[in-house]
């Protein structure tokens, strides 16, 4: 692919750049002439779905993005949230779905690399990572290959870079057969007065290229991310990018060192559509023009054209506007870390984006329009149909509750993910207080005696499929709940909205309703969205993935000495349910995996109860009154109790004999806003009184003890047997 700048612009070429006729007309209107080949590439990169959010912008604007703690919301590389003492947490989540399907190891690795770069570009040192993964059915021929490649890619990059992976999700469903999801999250900590933005300031200042050299990797990658898969997939292969975590680690250290010197005026990582996107964003946000001289760009391949350089997605690169008086200092730091450092352009006052290559001006475009005049669509959407209510007594009961619970906890989706997270370094940096396997990952804040941060990532796609609005709410609520279950106060969240083709009204309808649900839940729970990512066109041969709006959140613990874990109960303690008795079986694991049906609506999230119950549990944890805590999510009360027993290595004696409700609803219902806590006996009455006074629903379930999980007259399972079934599914499957 070495096409020069005079290559004729044909209709096919325009279409192959993902530009619809109306989009192309807008270009003609803007510049008053036919674009050059390079310019066409630049427009396609800036205006594709991935970079311009043209289908989603209208709806994203409705999300709550502000709050007392929010310093920077969406629009920057990552969201920035105050954690006190002059420090802030910087975080974001991003998808690398299509690249991971094509080349699972490198796709996942570069996904992790990209999100880490987003975080440290802002001046933050990454302290935690998560990965939310979705794969096809376990029996599908590609699934194992994808799982193994993606997991080793996530680990390969994150472990070498040196950030602990503290959480994530892994789920299997046939709807991801042709389109896996890899959503990577990273968080870093920065000084509140040491945050760097991408907005350039000052005319005539040097634009500096930092990091690795440019190759032809991923040319057209962002365009690919916005296209449906079809048989031409093989032809799209050469765009694979290879990650180099070693260079990224050096880039991190060099950037943080450089930022200390006061040399950096603006900085932007080169992610999707590399040089183009980063240069345009810096100029457009700062109301400045930018000139680039491509002959000065460090390249690692011969005869690269302007088009290729502008669209390359080579990894581990940054663009920066530099204080010219500090040029030598800056250069020294980069040389010390073995990285390329080159002045490749300057800022101007003409609001043009001008690119020069081999004595030729290959592009001259209006920078503001390029940055934010992408066509915006109000795509037609159709409200999805809803299921009518399904009371538990209309759902078939299991014959053997014990066997049913056993089969759930050893199932592909509910079994332990240890096989995955033991391939990730969960301990590096020495601050991990809770590693994966509990409700949320928790890390200490370096240099602070008592402060810690909690992280969780959640969504239940089957709920979203059945009712996108409730599903959107539920994703937020579950994330908030998982953070709360450690005793942390949820601060803010980030989203990664994975959907099918937005040009189909029913898909667009899912998108619209999910955002509405997310927005309502974030408002009710004071959990603003401060950054995010949209991944559309996740379809193969016209079949869309399940709607998957992943929500990841961050919470703060002021004193981790009072933190709850899923394990930690002592013999004789009281087991208590906070929240209502279970009865909702629609769209549950029981319904889907045991009965093999997808009936009924998903559980409704009562946001008021969610908030009250959560605040109650959190304050009990913070007051040191709770010895262990676990939220109830998929699999219901039965699975939550089993998970607590397996994590702690003890049994429980539960008695539900006086509850006059269908037993399968009680045990497997996935009603929301619920937790299980264990409490010292002498404290139990006090907590019960408090709950009653506060109008919180609760139930004393039984006691901790023995080596079996016993539900009186219903089931009796040996904890060691449960644990081995739970732990073995994944390694056995992958063997």
């Amino acid at each position, binding site marked *: 692919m070495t096409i020069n700048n005079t290559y004729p612009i044909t209709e096919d070429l325009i279409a192959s750049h993902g530009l619809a006729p109306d989009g192309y007309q807008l270009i003609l209107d803007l510049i008053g002439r036919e674009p050059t080949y390079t310019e066409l590439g630049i427009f396609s990169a800036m205006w594709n779905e991935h970079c311009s959010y043209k289908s989603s912008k209208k709806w994203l604007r409705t999300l709550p993005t502000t709050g007392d703690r929010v310093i920077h919301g969406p629009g920057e590389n990552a969201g920035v949230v105050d954690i006190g003492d002059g420090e802030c947490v910087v975080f974001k989540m991003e998808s690398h779905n299509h690249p991971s399907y094509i080349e699972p190891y490198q796709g996942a690795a570069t996904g992790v690399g990209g999100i880490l770069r987003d975080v440290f570009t802002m001046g933050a040192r990454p302290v935690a990572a998560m990965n939310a993964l979705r794969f096809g059915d376990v029996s599908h021929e590609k699934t194992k290959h994808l799982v193994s490649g993606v997991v080793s890619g996530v680990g390969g990059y994150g472990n070498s870079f040196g950030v602990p992976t503290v959480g994530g999700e892994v789920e299997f469903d046939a709807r991801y057969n042709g389109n896996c999801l890899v959503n990577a999250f990273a968080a870093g900590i920065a000084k509140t007065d040491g945050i760097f933005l991408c907005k350039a300031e000052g005319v005539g200042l040097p634009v500096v290229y930092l990091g690795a050299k440019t*190759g032809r*990797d991923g040319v057209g990658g962002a365009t690919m991310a916005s296209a449906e898969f079809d048989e031409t997939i093989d032809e799209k292969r050469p765009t*694979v990018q*290879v990650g180099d975590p*070693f*260079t990224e680690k050096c880039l991190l250290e060099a950037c943080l060192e450089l930022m200390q010197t006061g040399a950096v005026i603006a900085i932007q990582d080169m992610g999707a559509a590399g040089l183009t996107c980063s240069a345009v964003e810096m100029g457009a946000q700062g109301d400045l023009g930018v000139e680039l001289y491509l002959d000065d760009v460090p390249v690692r391949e011969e005869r690269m054209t302007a088009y290729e350089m502008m669209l390359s997605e080579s990894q581990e690169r940054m663009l920066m506007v530099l204080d010219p008086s500090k040029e030598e200092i800056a250069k020294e730091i980069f040389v010390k870390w073995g990285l390329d450092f080159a002045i490749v352009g300057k800022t101007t006052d003409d609001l043009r984006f001008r690119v020069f290559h081999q004595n030729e001006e290959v592009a001259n475009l209006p920078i503001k329009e390029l940055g934010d005049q992408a066509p915006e669509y109000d795509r037609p959407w159709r409200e999805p149909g809803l299921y009518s209510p399904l009371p538990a007594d209309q759902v078939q009961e299991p014959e053997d509750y014990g066997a049913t619970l056993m089969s759930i906890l050893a199932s592909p989706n509910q079994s332990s993910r240890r096989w995955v997270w033991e391939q990730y370094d969960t301990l590096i940096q020495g601050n991990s207080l809770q590693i994966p396997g509990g409700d949320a990952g928790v890390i200490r804040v370096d240099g602070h005696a008592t402060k810690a941060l909690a992280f969780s990532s959640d969504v239940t796609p089957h709920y979203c499929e059945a009712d996108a609005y409730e599903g959107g709410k539920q994703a937020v609520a579950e994330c908030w709940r998982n953070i709360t279950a450690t005793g942390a106060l949820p601060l803010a969240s980030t989203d990664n909205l994975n959907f099918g083709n937005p040009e189909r009204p029913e898909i667009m309808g899912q998108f619209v309703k999910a955002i509405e649900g997310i927005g309502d839940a974030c408002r009710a729970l004071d959990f603003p969205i401060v950054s995010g990512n949209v991944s559309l066109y996740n379809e193969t041969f016209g079949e869309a993935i399940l709607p998957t709006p992943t929500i990841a959140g961050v919470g703060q613990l002021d004193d981790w000495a009072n933190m709850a874990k899923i394990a930690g109960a002592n013999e004789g303690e009281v087991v208590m349910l906070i929240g209502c008795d279970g009865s909702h079986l629609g769209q549950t694991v029981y319904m889907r995996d045991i009965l093999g049906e997808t009936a009924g609506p998903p559980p409704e999230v009562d946001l008021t109860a969610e908030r009250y119950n959560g605040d109650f549990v959190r304050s009990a944890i913070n007051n040191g009154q709770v010895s262990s805590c676990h939220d109830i999510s998929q699999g219901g009360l039965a699975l939550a109790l089993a998970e607590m027993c397996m994590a702690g290595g003890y049994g429980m004696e539960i008695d539900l004999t006086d509850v006059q409700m269908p037993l399968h609803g009680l045990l497997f219902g996935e009603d929301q806003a619920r937790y299980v806590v264990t409490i010292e006996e002498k404290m139990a009455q006090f907590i019960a009184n408090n709950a009653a006074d506060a109008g919180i629903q609760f139930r004393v379930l039984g006691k901790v003890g023995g080596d079996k999980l016993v539900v009186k007259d219903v089931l009796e399972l040996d904890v060691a047997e449960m644990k081995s079934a739970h732990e073995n599914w994944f390694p056995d499957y992958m063997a």
Partner: protein
Amino acid sequence: MIKARVTVTLKNGVLDPQGKAIEGALTGLGFNGLEGVRQGKVFDLEINGDNKTAAGKDIEAMCEKLLANTVIEDYSIEIL
């Protein structure tokens, strides 16, 4: 018994961080004049039987299915 060697190398243009680091290290050790280092893999296979044509076909299938990641790698087969 048939012995064969499969050599798997990165496609042109695919970034090779390992090769780059090795090149840097060799230069650091005082070896001048290096213009490039690319790292690849070899697999030495021993296969029962003596039908070289059949073995060659099998090995090609092994490369396509497992030994090479044909998205980013090329392979070559040598029956010894």
